[in-house]
């Protein structure tokens, strides 16, 4: 409560301050920020056999307030999870408190921050601190950061601090250095772009092992380059993490110590009307946490489940589908070593790639018609690293470029077309393979699925429009087939309404199911809702059923339990 009052005191002082400064625009003082509130009223659902949690009304709220005066900016973020956070958010988000604060001084050449800051080196495979409220991730670093840009072609960053976990910070200290060098700018190359970058990230944490087989300071290094010439481009990044103890199964073992590495290569060709992109990646033992041991909340639940204390970002390189059914069997990147002697699962990372192809059939051509036709092809394949694995005592030795058992694959094509000035549509075909046994290290379930998802949107008047999306999935195991329907009506730029339903059928009641808390069969997962937007404000209200499963954003997922109820969300920036 004291902290709350403190927060309010700061807020009110800022608000008073802002009134004085807004009188004179020329002082350049300005106040800005935003409010976001996501609340849920969980209800009993007799048909699904779900009782609401003890506190049925739960709410996650964020208030960010920044004040800028010339080269200086200060900001605070207050967060309130009262009376409790939404189901399955990190339990360390408790009550109302100050989440982050910072003071920043920025000129063309110098950018200094004290307090909490966000940062990403390269593609984030060694270090990324960011915020994703839908996943409950805020791993900002509390400490200091300085960015120097002596010329427009050179950028150097140094940082130091501890990572945020809940409303506190973790024990491990993080040191980081990054450089980005634009060679084509320095060498005044006209026709090509060439840049290189180097990073160092260190994480220091005391260990309780008497004779640790690893250094308390874990060093990691990264080098990358980027080259493009006209329509062609290529970039690559190699990351190395020094020897460190590996989790076995949920605490680190002094007898299981290995280095980690990540290699990412991306190249492509693109010009007007056509684009081709290829990404290849190999990840080995790249779980990098700001504290070696995750916090254990219960035997089944550790802080890993809440994406807590992650220092790096290893997203799954697969297409992020907007089809609901294509997000039932969703792949998460396999960055960690996992050796489970009980069921013979042994994996050390992943290897694979993704290809994207975009093409536009021109207006007037046979496929293009009057308005043109756009297609997007995508495929991804991911495998375990091949090598010699020993279950007990745990050990492995991987081969660098050979592939092991398949985790996941996705082949899909999306065709979109405008038929006339009022009607446009698209259709997606998706074929997925999901190896649950190897991905989740549990039940021996492998799923092959095929999804068709057509969608049309029709303009009724210049402002009113209707969108209808139908989806069907055929799957050969787990809960088998699904059908889904969504209808959305946009009244104008302010009001919109939607209704949707998802239904599962064709299942075998006696078969193995992927999750043990899964729903009863013959359940309609209906939802209906409305949203009102005006300027920067948006209010959304909906009622319906949430399927238990993974909710993902940017390739990182959070498990949500099955629930039913009313959702209210509110966002506003100022």
């Amino acid at each position, binding site marked *: 409560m004291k902290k709350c009052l403190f927060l309010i005191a700061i807020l009110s002082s800022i*608000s008073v301050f802002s009134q004085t400064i807004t009188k004179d625009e020329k002082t*350049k003082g300005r106040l800005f920020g935003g409010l976001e509130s996501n609340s849920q009223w969980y209800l009993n659902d007799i048909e699904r056999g779900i009782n609401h949690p003890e506190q049925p009304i739960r709410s996650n709220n964020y*208030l960010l307030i920044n004040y800028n005066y010339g080269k200086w900016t200060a900001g605070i973020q207050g967060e*309130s999870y009262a009376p409790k956070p939404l189901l399955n958010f990190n339990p360390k988000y408790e009550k109302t408190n100050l989440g982050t604060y910072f003071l920043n001084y920025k000129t063309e050449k110098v950018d200094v921050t004290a307090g909490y800051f966000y940062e990403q080196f390269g593609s*984030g495979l060694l270090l990324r601190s960011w915020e994703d409220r839908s996943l409950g991730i805020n791993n900002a670093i509390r400490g200091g950061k300085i960015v120097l840009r002596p010329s427009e072609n050179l950028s150097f960053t140094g940082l130091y601090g501890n990572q945020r976990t809940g409303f506190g910070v973790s024990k491990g200290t993080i040191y980081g250095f990054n450089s980005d060098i634009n060679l084509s700018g320095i060498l005044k190359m006209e026709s090509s772009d060439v840049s290189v970058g180097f990073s160092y990230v260190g994480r220091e944490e005391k260990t309780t092992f008497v004779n640790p087989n690893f250094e308390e300071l874990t060093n990691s290094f990264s080098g990358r380059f980027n080259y*493009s010439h006209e329509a062609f481009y290529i970039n690559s990044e190699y990351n190395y993490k020094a020897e460190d103890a590996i989790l076995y199964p949920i605490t680190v073992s002094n007898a299981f110590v290995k280095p980690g590495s990540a290699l990412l290569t991306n190249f492509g060709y693109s010009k007007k009307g056509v684009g081709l*992109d290829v990404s290849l990646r190999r990840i080995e033992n790249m779980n990098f946490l700001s504290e070696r041991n995750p916090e254990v909340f219960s035997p089944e639940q550790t802080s890993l489940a809440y994406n807590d204390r992650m220092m790096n970002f290893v997203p799954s390189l697969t297409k992020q589908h907007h089809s609901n059914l294509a997000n039932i069997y969703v792949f998460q990147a396999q960055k960690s070593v996992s050796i489970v002697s009980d069921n013979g699962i042994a994996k050390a990372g992943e290897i694979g790639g993704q290809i994207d192809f975009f093409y536009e059939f021109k207006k007037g051509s046979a496929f293009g018609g009057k308005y043109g036709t756009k297609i997007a092809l995508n495929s991804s394949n991911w495998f375990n690293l091949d090598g010699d694995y020993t279950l007990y005592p745990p050990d492995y030795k991987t081969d660098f470029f050979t592939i092991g058992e398949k985790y996941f694959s996705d082949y899909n094509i999306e065709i979109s077309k405008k038929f006339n000035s009022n009607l446009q549509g698209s259709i997606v075909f998706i074929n997925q393979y999901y190896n649950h046994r190897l991905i989740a290290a549990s039940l021996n379930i492998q799923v092959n699925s095929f999804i068709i998802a057509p969608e049309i949107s029709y*303009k009724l008047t210049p402002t009113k*429009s209707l969108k209808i999306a139908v989806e069907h999935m055929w799957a050969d195991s787990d809960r088998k087939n699904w059908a889904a329907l969504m209808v959305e009506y946009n009244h104008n730029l302010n009001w919109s309404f939607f209704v949707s339903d998802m239904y599962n059928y064709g299942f075998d009641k006696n078969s193995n199911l992927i999750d043990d808390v899964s729903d009863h069969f013959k359940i309609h997962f209906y939802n209906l809702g409305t949203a009102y937007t005006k300027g920067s404000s*948006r209010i959304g209200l909906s009622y319906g059923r949430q399927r238990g499963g993974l909710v993902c954003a940017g390739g990182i997922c959070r498990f949500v339990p099955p629930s039913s109820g009313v959702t209210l969300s509110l966002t506003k920036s100022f």
Partner: protein
Amino acid sequence: MKKTLLVLFTLINFLVYSQHQLPNVKLKNLKGELVNSNLDFQKKEVLYVYSFWATWCAPCVQELDAINEVYGDWKQKLNVELIAVSVDDSRTEKRVKPMVNGKGWGYTILLDTNQEFKRSLSIANVPYTVVVKNNVIVYVQNGHSPGGESEFFEKLKSL
């Protein structure tokens, strides 16, 4: 605790001064050059339309596709420039360039890979559009409805 929240929300109401100026953040363009989100877009009387989008956001892509159809007309009638700010993180960032080219969009593209620009404007969801004229934010639009581009164009004409 409820009281605290109430006080917080009331405070917000006192604090509703619109953000007059766009924050200046350094972002990369598709050539890898650093661009200033504000300082490099300050020509007098030009309507700068910052459209926040992502490759995985279907309504965003639909909106930018729809505007692309009429962008030539808009430019003839108005002094307008659209800056499509991709908030794709490193999972999907590499798809931006082939997608933009594959779709033949003629916009200026900026990459907000770790969402610093998005955060500085407290944007919760994309699509989100901010219109800046003479260094002042003159209009904000949250979300997109199919066909909304004609209504949006009427709005632009009035700014």
